[in-house]
């Protein structure tokens, strides 16, 4: 890419292209590391691609992981607009998932699948939203730092969910720590092409939701309030934009979206709440949002990339002799590094300018 061209490309597209190049650079660096472990990078890449695109089932599983990461990524990216760093996604998503399982028990009499799914969606969103709004409120009212409060809320969420799972909603027929299974009306149907992978129309709904969120945040007054608060809270309040309002509302929406994980996990996959179902998806969401550079639409490709890596992790164990699932964590780290080292792009331009000065 030449400098003269760069000037004509709109900022958003340039920023997107930089992220893509950064991510590919990180991926290539990660693959090169395999050489040191004595495994050929080409083979590792093939395993990763095959494991995510090799069959309908594999692709369905990749989309299934992607669904977790879309939600967890949005839960970080939205408050980030208002200048908050939400690392409570893990707690918000477990609470949301538990609420979905509760909805299945409380709404056992519901006959219509549409009503059942709407009820569970509302329960997950509200539960996650309230869980997110608590740190938002503490920040707005007391100025408590959200990094501290959200991470503490994660532990409280773990305690609350295990109490409900073991003593309130416990499945008496199971020796495991899990809730009563959902009835058929609550279960989401997967697509047949995915041949057994637990993913269906939900992934399309989540993509549409992301698009809508992107438009809302860009064009609505609410989106403007978040942005004004995030960019400069003092300047915002001079113009009559309430920072506490932006904090509280963004944390509520973020928590609610994280809570929708209940749809992916409980309605779509296990049809019940199991303690420890999440492989720290809430924390991976931070990385997803980082790679997307906080851009709402960017969450989609970023979540997909993390889905590919999550699906590939197990396959690396299976298909290669010298590298294990841990390699994907190295690759994730390098991709984040590749995307985050944004300043490097300015280096040639600066040198060029200096030479012509």
């Amino acid at each position, binding site marked *: 890419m030449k400098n003269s061209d760069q000037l004509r490309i709109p900022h958003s597209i340039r920023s997107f292209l930089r992220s893509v190049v950064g991510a*590919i650079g990180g991926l290539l660096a990660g693959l090169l590391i395999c050489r040191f472990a004595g495994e050929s990078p*080409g083979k590792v*890449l*093939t395993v990763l*691609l*095959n494991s995510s*695109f*090799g069959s309908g*089932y*594999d692709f369905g*599983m990749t989309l*299934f*992981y992607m669904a977790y990461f879309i939600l967890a990524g949005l839960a970080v990216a939205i408050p980030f607009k208002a200048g908050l760093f939400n690392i409570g996604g893990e707690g918000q998503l477990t609470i949301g998932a538990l609420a979905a399982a509760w909805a299945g028990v409380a709404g056992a009499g519901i006959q219509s699948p549409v009503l059942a799914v709407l009820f569970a969606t509302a329960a997950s969103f509200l539960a996650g939203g309230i869980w997110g709004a608590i740190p938002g409120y503490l920040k707005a009212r007391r100025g408590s730092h959200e990094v501290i409060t959200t991470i503490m809320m994660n*532990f409280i969420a*773990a*305690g609350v*969910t*295990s*109490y409900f799972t*073991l003593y309130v909603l*416990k499945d*008496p*027929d199971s*020796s*495991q*720590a899990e809730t009563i299974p959902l009835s058929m009306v609550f279960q989401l149907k997967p697509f047949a092409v995915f041949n*057994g992978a*637990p993913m269906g129309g939900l992934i399309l709904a989540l993509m549409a939701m992301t698009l809508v969120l992107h438009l809302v945040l860009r064009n609505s007054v609410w989106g403007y309030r978040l942005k004004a608060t995030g960019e400069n809270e003092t300047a915002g309040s001079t113009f009559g934009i309430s920072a506490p309002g932006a904090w509280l509302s963004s944390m509520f929406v973020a928590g609610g979206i994280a809570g929708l994980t209940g749809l992916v996990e409980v309605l779509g*996959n*296990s049809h019940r709440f*199991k*303690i*420890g*179902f999440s*492989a720290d998806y809430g924390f991976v969401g931070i990385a997803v949002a980082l790679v997307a550079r906080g851009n709402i639409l960017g969450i989609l490709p970023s979540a997909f990339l993390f889905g590919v890596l*999550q*699906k590939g*992790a*197990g*396959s690396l*164990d*299976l*298909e290669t002799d010298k590298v*294990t*699932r841990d390699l*994907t964590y190295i690759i994730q780290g390098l991709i984040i590094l590749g995307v985050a080292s944004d300043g490097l792009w300015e280096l040639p331009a600066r040198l060029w300018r200096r030479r012509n000065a």
Partner: protein
Amino acid sequence: MRNLLRIHAFLPLWALAVLSVPSASAQLRVGLVLERSGKDDKSFNASAYQGLKRAEKELGVSTKTVEAPDNAAYESLQRAFAEKKFDLIIAVGFHQLESVKKNAARFPNQKFLLVDEDAKAPNVRSVMFEEHEGSYLVGALAAMHAPGGKIGFIGGMDVPLIRRFETGYVAGAKKINPKVQMLSNYLGVTGEAWNNPPKAKELALDQFNRGAEVIFVAAGNSGVGVFDAAADRKKLAIGVDSNQNWLKPGSILTSMLKRVDEAVYDSVKLFKEGKFTTGLIRYGVKSKGVDYSLDEHNARLVTEADKKQLEQLRTEIVKGKIKVPDYYLIQKK
């Protein structure tokens, strides 16, 4: 970029190449799917892995071990093994129950071994351990070594499985000393509970301060913290799952063994001999599938009289004279 696209374009060919590699010999191929905690958990998964490695060495089977990165991967990995036509697929841990059920139905000719749950499928051999029976024996031994009448229990997460250890343990202790007092703590409510030795040590020190003389710990990796505390205070601890006596010789009274390694090895051996059967197999004190460990590290702690008494209890359990309370049945009531 162009190179990447080219690889993409040839993907179906790659896939074909991978699939069409013929199995080099008639060697038996066994695939092992471990839980998230993996083969280095010094406990349950480690034991399964050792059992398989022993089978590889002694029975000449070819093996492949994978560690699942998340709970949804259990199904993918078992399925990948089945598609690669492995002869036997071993799934370790109760988390894999649902996925084994699904895959057993999808691949009706594929044989599975599931450890720690009952899949109730015609092509699955399910192995379950009577943890409460083994815990009963170590509970009795704990009471014999607690003249003050106070013993402790430290569990990982408060889940039914660990409650099953606890109820068996108390019952065994009460058999020896009906007035025995029990202190009980659980480490936490997240997966971290299985991997938090410092907290386990604090809890153990607290229990020792309150007068406990022996502490039984069923908390995965966190157990080492309890062993540390026992060594510091010159008190006793009891290990779990694999033989942990060597970790702090002299401070570990015994370990409540859960012979996952035996279950894995036996199943592979039976498979090789063509005697593999499906259905539920229970490993209790009778088959020594759960047991207390004796070795050079605790030889000076467990006396001949102790052993005699324990063996007496074992026979009574086997004969049905002693009914060890089973938490799985208690919670259903």
